[in-house]
């Protein structure tokens, strides 16, 4: 019988299937999210969460039959002072959340400034247009770059100094003061702020790349573009000196085409797996804006984490309320409360997450005006 002859119910019958993956729905997390909505801010953990974590038979992450998970920490949003600026984009923080950096007047064409907070108070405002600090040690040493990635910078004792290396960018620093970034568009490492950079080993054919994260044991994560192919590939330099690309997982029967690493914590790299979605051929509404482009490829990004020690991939959930900033505690979503001073609908981004998952910093971007207001989240 052809598709034209079948009645609607008969036509749809093959789609009447059960989900083809075990449930990841988490009642405990849903209650925690709902509680935040009700109170408008995070308050103390409710009795229900405590009871579930204590091992009662109900609740927990339904996909697993083991012990119920620990309750997620409670977080409080602290608006950061703005020193008279109307817009500050948070750009980096140290592992404890004590030191936070931002870029005031961050819009292209404005003369931006570097702002540094310690314990939620401003300690420095440096009029250095285009410069941003993306990472700190817990002793307050920061690293960063300018917008064109012509120079790499170190911030120490209230001053910015350039790192050796000519056209360079610094992205991250660990507690030992080892800095990673790029020199001449290739991944590089500085053993210390005063040291000359050394290139990180890469496979042949690399046209661009950078190291973007480093852990205290020396594990480095970055990305490479090989033969100018898109999308770029995530690359791992292990502490034992071995290195290689991350072997990408198969997602719903399709091989992933890329992975964008966003952070590394507790032996896991968190980021977005990119899979092909669908193609729109030229002639569609967007084609006229891109002369010479023959087709548009749509990718969808799916949150995943990668365990460095084992190469295991875990697919992660997205937060229930996507206007909120969030980060992952293990494989669970911790949604963060809004800025209590926000007076209009707002979307939030957490730009940095503390090493212990107990702090984060980011900003809101007001729906009207597009101003960034910096926020620190402290969790316990």
């Amino acid at each position, binding site marked *: 019988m*052809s*598709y*034209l002859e079948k009645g*609607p*119910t008969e*036509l*749809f019958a*093959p*789609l*009447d*299937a*059960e*989900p*083809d*993956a075990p*449930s*990841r*729905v*988490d*009642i405990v*997390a*849903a*209650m925690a*999210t*709902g509680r935040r*909505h*009700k109170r408008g801010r995070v308050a103390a953990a409710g*009795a*229900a969460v405590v009871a*579930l974590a204590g091992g009662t038979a*109900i*609740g927990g992450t*339904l996909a697993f039959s083991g012990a119920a998970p620990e309750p997620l920490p409670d977080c409080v949003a602290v608006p950061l002072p703005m020193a008279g600026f109307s817009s500050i984009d948070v750009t980096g923080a140290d592992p404890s959340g004590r030191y936070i950096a931002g870029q005031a007047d961050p819009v292209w064409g404005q003369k931006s400034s570097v702002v540094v907070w310690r314990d939620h108070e401003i300690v420095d405002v440096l009029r250095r247009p285009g410069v941003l600090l993306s990472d700190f040690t817990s002793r307050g040493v920061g690293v960063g770059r300018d917008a064109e990635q012509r120079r790499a910078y170190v911030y120490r004792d209230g001053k910015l100094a350039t790192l050796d290396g000519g056209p360079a960018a610094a992205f991250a620093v660990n507690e030992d003061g080892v800095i990673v970034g790029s020199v001449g568009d290739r991944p590089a490492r500085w053993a210390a702020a005063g040291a000359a950079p050394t290139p990180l080993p890469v496979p042949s054919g690399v046209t661009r790349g950078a190291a973007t994260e480093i852990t205290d044991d020396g594990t480095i994560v970055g990305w490479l573009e090989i033969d100018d192919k*898109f*999308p770029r590939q995530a690359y791992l330099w292990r502490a034992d000196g071995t290195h290689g690309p991350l072997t990408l997982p198969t997602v*719903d029967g*399709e091989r992933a*085409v890329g992975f964008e690493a966003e952070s590394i914590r507790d032996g896991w790299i968190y980021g977005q797996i990119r899979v*092909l*979605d*669908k*193609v*729109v*051929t030229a002639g569609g509404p*967007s084609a006229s804006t*891109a002369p010479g*482009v*023959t*087709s*548009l*490829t*749509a990718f*969808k*990004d799916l949150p995943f984490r990668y365990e460095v020690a084992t190469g295991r991939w875990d*697919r992660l*959930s*997205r937060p*229930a*309320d*996507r206007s909120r900033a969030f980060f992952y505690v293990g494989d669970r979503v911790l949604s963060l409360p809004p800025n209590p001073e926000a007076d209009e609908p707002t979307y939030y981004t957490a730009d940095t997450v503390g090493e212990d998952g107990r702090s984060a910093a980011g900003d809101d971007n007001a729906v009207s005006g597009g101003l960034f207001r910096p926020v620190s989240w402290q969790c316990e």
Partner: protein
Amino acid sequence: MNPSDADYVAYVQGRIPALRRLAYHLCGDAHHADDLVQETIAKLYTAWSRISAADGLDQYTRTTLVRAFLDDRRRGWWRVRLFDAVPEHAGPPPSGAEDRVLLRAALDKVPPRQQAVLVLRFLHDLPVAEVARLVGCSEGTVKSQTAHGLATMRRLLVTWSSPSPDRVP
């Protein structure tokens, strides 16, 4: 755990299989379906004290899920990137793909509200009036969306399953 929370957990535990199934039928992806259910039960918890004793709890929950699906499509999680060549896995489903794959691909091609209407009417056997309440439109709109969606899907299915080499929709 207070009695209200215990009621909530009991209710949600009982409803999760059906909610996952509906979400899976709507979006076609088990993981995305779980995200929709997670969002739905979080919203349900927020409203629990207001509605738990009221009639229509199932309808409230289903409505929340359907609206979450429609909102999700409207916000768009898909990121479009410029690309100068058609990649290997792009395009319509491969020839010879099983009915279910073709149907899913065709359903994905119709607008989200039509998808919701078709799934609710023909996979969940809900009457037009109920679908109208869930989707948030008039009964007449449900009927017209049903007709448009079905016509689009049938056209795509016939095109894809024909042996012609020009079967790109």
